[in-house]
């Protein structure tokens, strides 16, 4: 009888110890599964899940020396900042998650800063880029990106100058990110002595750009800057081919980074300049290629060149910080703020909320992939003149 009792106690103890060791780390985030951002947000979710699967396959997340499996808790925020606030509040107070990952896009990042500050819960952001972020005096959020419209505009103007551009046409979608870029690129071009011969906005729900691009053609600029979102980037490309915009310098802001763009345009997109600070072609970022290959193997599509790598960078930073600091919020905050991390996008180091180790860059599609072409010290390929449309 006694022996049975002891065995039972031993078994229970062993069970509880085992359960404790195996207790997964709960990581929460809100996802824009539906609504305005759903299409753009998918690759962030895919990068998160790829990381979770990789970490679990390697035995779990290293929490200051103990390996624990990773478990996600996520809810659909319907692309609504208000919903995201409620979700992060719930994740922290009700689900009691151990760690947080970022929602998608600038507006949702900005919305949840208050929640993070109130609960002093550190979170590494990713897919947000607006000059507003730099002004944030927050202690619990960090941004690994360098896609800031002001710096991006200066870098682009320098590249255009280098390519011998004297005049440019600018067509801009009336959505926030493209408008913010426009507000900085217009003075940057002026400062660089580049004359703006067309400067027109178009609404996001546009279905045809023929008339606008005909105006661009008639103005005969040296360069065309199409500040698009992905959907109208397709309209630009088709329109530019039909109208016959033969400029050797053509910039398409948002669109060329995505897998679908390559599927439609194939070689026709070679020579298009675009934004982006990541490429699997960088030899000094060996894990960049590993990530690209793993992403492709897992999701049967190439990662985009902006959101997927940024999302992955943010979880890499979190992973390295947790290995060092464990799950204690204060220690974690200190570690994230004061460490240099190795990521698929090179080293990351924060001053305030910004990653100061990553310069702003301009990319170009060459041979079916995206290369960094500017500034010269960062480039993986020389910028080329855009070949004639086939």
């Amino acid at each position, binding site marked *: 009888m006694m022996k049975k009792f002891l065995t039972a106690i031993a078994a229970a103890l062993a069970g509880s110890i085992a359960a404790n060791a195996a207790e997964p780390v709960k990581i929460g985030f809100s996802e824009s*599964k539906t609504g305005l951002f*759903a299409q753009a947000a998918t690759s962030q979710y895919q990068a998160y899940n790829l990381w979770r699967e990789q970490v679990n396959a390697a035995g779990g997340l290293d929490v200051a020396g103990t390996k624990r499996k990773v478990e996600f808790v996520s809810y659909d925020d319907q692309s609504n900042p208000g919903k995201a606030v409620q979700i992060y509040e719930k994740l922290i107070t009700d689900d009691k998650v151990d760690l947080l990952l970022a929602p998608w896009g600038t507006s949702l990042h900005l919305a949840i800063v208050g929640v993070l500050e109130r609960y002093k819960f550190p979170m590494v952001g990713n897919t947000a880029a607006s000059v507003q972020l730099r002004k944030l005096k927050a202690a619990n959020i960090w941004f690994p990106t360098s896609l800031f419209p002001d710096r991006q505009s200066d870098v682009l103007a320098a590249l255009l100058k280098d390519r011998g551009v004297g005049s440019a046409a600018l067509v801009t979608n009336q959505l926030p990110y493209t408008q913010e870029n426009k507000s900085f690129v217009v003075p940057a071009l002026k400062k660089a002595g580049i004359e703006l011969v067309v400067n027109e906005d178009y609404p996001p729900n546009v279905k045809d750009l023929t008339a606008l691009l005909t105006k661009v053609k008639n103005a005969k600029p040296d360069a065309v800057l199409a500040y698009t979102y992905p959907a109208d980037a397709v309209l630009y490309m088709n329109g530019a081919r039909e109208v016959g915009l033969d400029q050797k310098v053509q910039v398409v802001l948002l669109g060329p980074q995505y897998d*679908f763009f390559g599927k439609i345009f194939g070689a026709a997109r070679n020579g298009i300049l675009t934004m982006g600070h990541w490429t699997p072609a960088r030899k000094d970022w060996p894990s960049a290629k590993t990530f690209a290959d793993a992403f492709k193997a897992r999701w049967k599509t190439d990662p985009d060149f902006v959101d997927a790598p940024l999302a992955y960078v943010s979880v890499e930073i979190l992973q390295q910080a947790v290995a060092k600091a464990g799950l204690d919020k204060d220690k974690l905050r200190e570690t994230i703020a004061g460490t240099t991390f190795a990521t698929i996008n090179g080293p990351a180091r924060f001053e305030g909320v910004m990653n100061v180790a990553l310069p702003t860059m301009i990319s170009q599609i060459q041979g079916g992939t995206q290369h960094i072409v500017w500034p010269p010290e960062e480039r993986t390929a020389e910028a080329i003149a855009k070949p004639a449309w086939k």
Partner: protein
Amino acid sequence: MIDLFSGQLLIAALVLAAIYGLVALGLNLIYGTMRLLNVAHGEILMLGGYLAYWTFTLTGVGPVWSMFLALALAGAFGAAVYRTLCRRVLRSSRLIEQIEANSLLLLFGVSIILQNAVALSFTATARAYPYLDDIVRIGTFQVTADRLVVLGIGLALSLAAILFFRLSATGLQIRALIQQPDAALLVGVDVERMRLIAFSLGFAIAGVAGCLISMLEQVSPFMGFPFTIAAFVVIILGGLGNLAGGLAGALVLAAIEVYGVALTTASMRSILIYGVFIAVLVWRPQGLFGGRSLVR
């Protein structure tokens, strides 16, 4: 100054009109015969787009062929939606009183379910494929072959629809139902059957439109809604329930979009479109091309 008589602008306007016309035709047919506001119309188009995408990606068969499959499948789906959902609403004496509002709510639900079902099955990632994207030179201007194909098929289908509704017995019965529902019943039109046919035809045309649109832009679960809105603008311009008027309305909308931008600036596009839209609602609620008989 931009040359308003250039073939480049004309072809752009015609292609756009063909798309709008086709999308609006199906919506108008369903509204005309049953007063059902099918806000899920864009989602049927989206399903057509996915069908074309997957058929092309998996088998290499282009949308010019898969549109026949889309026609059949979307038509069958329309029949199923009609039988399971819409017929109940049309038969219920309580719901029929405010059929427009009730059908709007019902089909709005269908639209959300379809969007999210597709987003869950295929993810929300935009997808696209290259098809007939060579440049064709016609006189002084050039156009991609896929846009010419869209224009050709759009025109052919519109013509076929006009002939169908003018010449065939079924088409005439459906038109009778649109113009004088009570009289149509009195002279022995099989209302139930005609409604079923009209509903599934409406869906079928939307499916085909989706196949064609997938040649020109990327497909995603949320691509449909802007087309639903455009189609509503078109049929209000052309006259609710007026099928030929709808085609003319599509031409008007496309012309505003292309020539309006050419004459003013691109940022004026929405202001021009909705300005004309509101003006028509205020001064010609029966539509630019609607006869008095269609005013209720």
